[in-house]
């Protein structure tokens, strides 16, 4: 633990925590380092300290189809003599489309031909590739495009300026007369050259220290629908995309680990006699995680693990039971906790005149369950460590991975690959999958490269969950139907406690536990908050949209209950509380307008509405829900988002669709129960995921904006649950206060 605390400096911790959602952004999150001054004005000229001159080539292995220099003005772009443009992506692609986004930023300022643009992943190098919002190299907090917006544009503009300067010198014409477009330089005299033809000459010129960026009116890709389609579509449609599970190396072995069966369980002893008899099993070794069975292939490893006899001491966690825990949390919610908003008034305000609305909400543990179960390939050889994985937090993975190998960080090379999803799972300050692979590689003496592959059960049953939470809310309305009192208690594990970002916890408040209640989009000066953060043997982790996963549900279903109690329309009631928030007002009104809010619906169909701000973006959704035989179906979701400049509109639409589907999956079906210290749900048969016939139609409307981009990968999720729940209540269904909906029998299991 102590070693972990030293992984990041204090400022890095603060930056990381903030960017990961510790403080719900109001659009100002990036302001310290990246101010988009005068973005709408003509000819933004910027100097930059973030375009480190170092070349990526030295540290990055050759990638098929990638440009081989020679023009490498910075660590983010290469223009080859073959006329290919390669964008070096510092962020991990988990499906959210950021490689396409980063390439679009470079291509736009470079005036590139999109068909000649390639992407590759940056090596671990925090000096060159830090997330400017974190101060470390990592992807999370919906920050990839937001923190890279000026950096990657500058990188492209620099390359363009050098190509233009080279052409001007060669053609003896003023640089200002040279036009660029689609990888081509041209002059009115009839002279022209491809970028590839001019790359060598350009590479001999000094790198400019400042460049002029385009005005929004000059954009060719940014904000243009389908101008820069996804860079990863083809490879993901023909089976050639290389995921961690697909890595091939000479002599590569596969390992599965016998993990502790319950939380807090400890290894007592094991007998590997039968396991070693399985054909293909090469090693059975003890590692800090448990017992690793190493084999020539996955099936042999699994058969070996089945034959392995392991004795565990489960006494430490044996009494852990999620149902009992909920009861304990409910009791705790009634007790005073740490204040996270206005401290309680003394003497308390008179409540006799108020109409009181009270509710207790219960949220289960959630596993991320990305399609690709966790994995990592590690190879210890010749005094160095190499890993291949969806390294979402390279800075942590490098420090913790190299430490596990007993090597200095600079002796570890990380090869970042596309991830089969993450939703927060790989953004992990413990680097569990990387460290496990290194531990196994070490335990077999570096004899061969080895892939540690989690099974679905290992991954879903292994903790690192969105914690369980209980909210207890009491709201008093005055005679005019206005909110006069709001008492809000939250009970649930702190995600940051016990980890390298624990320093973000101030006065007992982990900001990720309360974000969305405080701060909130609404003007609620009367809100009094109390937080309890019990510690458990189950490791917590951020899960797509972090604290907003539960706070938005509470706030936005409570808004509907209050509107009803005040005799007001839910939309009008919200708008009255958003008077100081024109951005949220506009987004909410857009969603309502596009959905036809207030218009009569056919029998058995109702609309529910919700709005929520997270990761610097505002999203409002209207869910249309039908009910038949007591079971609900979400027919359509109309979604509006303000995320600043919409770099890739279609990627944004895809993220809204994805957030809605992922959110609906959790709302309807997802929970990890714990009995006798063990997780109950461990695979998709019991940890049910949304399927195609349950996916609603989704309609996305993006608010036009010239403000710097904000998050997209997560903000579409928080409003979904409450919008659906509000519609259910309007259909005459119950006010659902315990998730998932299977608990209320509103959906078939």
């Amino acid at each position, binding site marked *: 633990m102590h070693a972990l605390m030293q992984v990041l400096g204090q400022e890095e911790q603060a930056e990381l925590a903030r960017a990961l959602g510790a403080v719900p952004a109001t659009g100002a999150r990036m302001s310290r380092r990246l101010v988009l001054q005068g973005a709408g004005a003509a000819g933004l000229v910027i100097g930059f300290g973030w375009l480190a001159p170092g070349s990526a080539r030295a540290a990055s292995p050759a990638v098929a189809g990638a440009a081989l220099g020679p023009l490498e003005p910075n660590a983010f772009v290469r223009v080859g003599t073959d006329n290919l443009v390669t964008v070096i992506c510092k962020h991990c692609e988990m499906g959210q489309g950021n490689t396409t986004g980063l390439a679009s930023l470079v291509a736009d300022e470079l005036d590139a031909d999109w068909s000649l643009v390639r992407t590759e992943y940056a090596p671990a190098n925090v000096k060159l590739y830090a997330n400017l919002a974190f101060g470390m190299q990592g992807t999370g907090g919906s920050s990839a495009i937001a923190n890279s917006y000026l950096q990657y544009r500058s990188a492209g503009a620099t390359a363009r300026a050098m190509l233009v300067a080279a052409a001007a010198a060669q053609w003896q014409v003023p640089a200002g007369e040279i036009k660029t477009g689609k990888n081509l330089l041209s002059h009115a005299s009839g002279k022209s050259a491809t970028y590839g033809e001019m790359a060598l000459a350009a590479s001999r010129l000094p790198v400019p220290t400042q460049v002029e960026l385009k005005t929004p009116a000059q954009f060719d890709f940014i904000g243009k629908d389908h101008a820069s389609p996804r860079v990863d579509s083809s490879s993901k449609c023909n*089976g050639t995309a290389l995921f961690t599970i697909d890595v091939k190396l000479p002599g590569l072995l596969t390992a599965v680990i016998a993990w502790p069966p319950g939380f807090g369980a400890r290894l007592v002893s094991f007998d590997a006699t039968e396991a070693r008899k399985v054909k293909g099993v090469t090693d059975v070794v003890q590692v800090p995680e448990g017992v690793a069975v190493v084999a020539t292939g996955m099936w*042999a490893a699994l058969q070996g693990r089945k034959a392995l006899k392991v004795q565990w001491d489960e006494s430490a966690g044996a009494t852990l039971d999620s149902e009992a825990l909920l009861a304990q949390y409910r009791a705790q919610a009634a007790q005073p906790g740490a204040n996270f908003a206005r401290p309680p008034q003394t003497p308390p305000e008179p409540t006799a005149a108020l109409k009181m609305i009270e509710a207790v909400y219960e949220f289960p543990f959630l596993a991320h369950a990305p399609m690709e179960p966790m994995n990592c390939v590690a190879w210890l050889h010749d005094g160095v460590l190499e890993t291949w994985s969806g390294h979402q937090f390279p800075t942590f993975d490098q420090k913790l991975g190299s430490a596990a190998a007993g090597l200095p960080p600079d002796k570890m090379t990380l090869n970042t690959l596309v991830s089969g999803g993450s939703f927060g799972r790989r953004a992990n300050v413990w680097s569990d999958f990387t460290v496990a692979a290194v531990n196994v590689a070490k335990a077999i003496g570096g004899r061969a490269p080895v892939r540690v592959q989690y099974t679905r059960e290992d991954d879903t049953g292994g903790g690192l969950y969105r914690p369980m939470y209980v909210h207890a809310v009491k709201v008093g309305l005055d005679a005019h139907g206005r909110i006069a009192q709001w008492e809000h208690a939250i009970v649930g594990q702190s995600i940051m406690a016990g980890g390298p970002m624990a320093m973000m916890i101030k006065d007992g408040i982990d900001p990720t536990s309360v974000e969305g209640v405080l701060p909130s989009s609404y003007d609620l000066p009367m809100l009094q908050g109390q937080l309890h953060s019990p510690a458990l043997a189950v490791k917590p982790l951020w899960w797509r949209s972090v604290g907003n996963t539960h706070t938005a549900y509470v706030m936005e279903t409570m808004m509907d209950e209050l509107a009803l109690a005040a005799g007001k329309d839910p939309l009008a009631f919200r708008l009255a509380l958003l008077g100081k928030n024109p951005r949220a007002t506009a987004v909410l009104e857009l969603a309502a307008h596009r959905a036809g809010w207030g218009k009569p619906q056919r029998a058995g169909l109702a609309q529910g509405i919700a709005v929520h701000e997270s990761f610097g973006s505002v999203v409002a959704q209207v869910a249309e829900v039908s009910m038949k035989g007591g079971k609900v179906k979400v027919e359509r979701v109309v979604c509006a988002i303000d995320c600043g400049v919409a770099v890739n509109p279609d990627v944004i639409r895809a993220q809204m669709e994805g957030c809605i589907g*992922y959110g609906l999956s959790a709302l309807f079906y997802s929970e990890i129960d714990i009995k006798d210290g063990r997780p109950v749900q461990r695979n*998709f048969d019991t940890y049910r995921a949304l399927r*195609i016939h349950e996916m609603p139609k989704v309609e996305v409307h993006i608010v036009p904006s010239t403000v710097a981009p904000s998050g997209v990968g997560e903000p579409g999720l928080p409003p979904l649950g409450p919008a659906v729940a509000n519609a259910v209540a309007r259909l005459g269904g119950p006010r659902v206060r315990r998730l998932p909906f299977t608990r209320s029998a509103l959906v078939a299991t």
Partner: protein
Amino acid sequence: MPIELNVNGQARTVDVDPETPLLWVIRDDLGLTGTKYGCGIAQCGACTVHVDGEPLRSCSAPVAAMSGRQLTTIEGLSSRTAKAVQKAWVDLDVVQCGYCQSGQIMSAVALLEKLPRPTDLDIDHAMAGNICRCATYHRIRAAIHAASAQLHA
């Protein structure tokens, strides 16, 4: 025990435990990694391949039962229908993380080979066995309709 297989039109012989699920033979022994592991219990469909043209969850099918049958993986797709499906997937930018998409495409191709003009309900039935945690379902449906339209253009 040597087992003779026909994979993507090629005869292959593997010497493995006959109980080995086809998935791991395809991936580990034949090196065809486009087919993915997701759950191991035929719940998610990431491992879908074609056996004599029918979609099959290869994670739960012992390899011994596959002898003498025509196996097709994502790498072996070549029919007009398959090309139309892959093109529609790219045209509509269906993918996000992409991990499930080999399986989705295998299920979609099998559907269209059998029902060239599927209804939404047909799509629901054919595709309900394939989970996508990125929830690209909306676009999968649109891409199947687009491929169908292209095939009949």
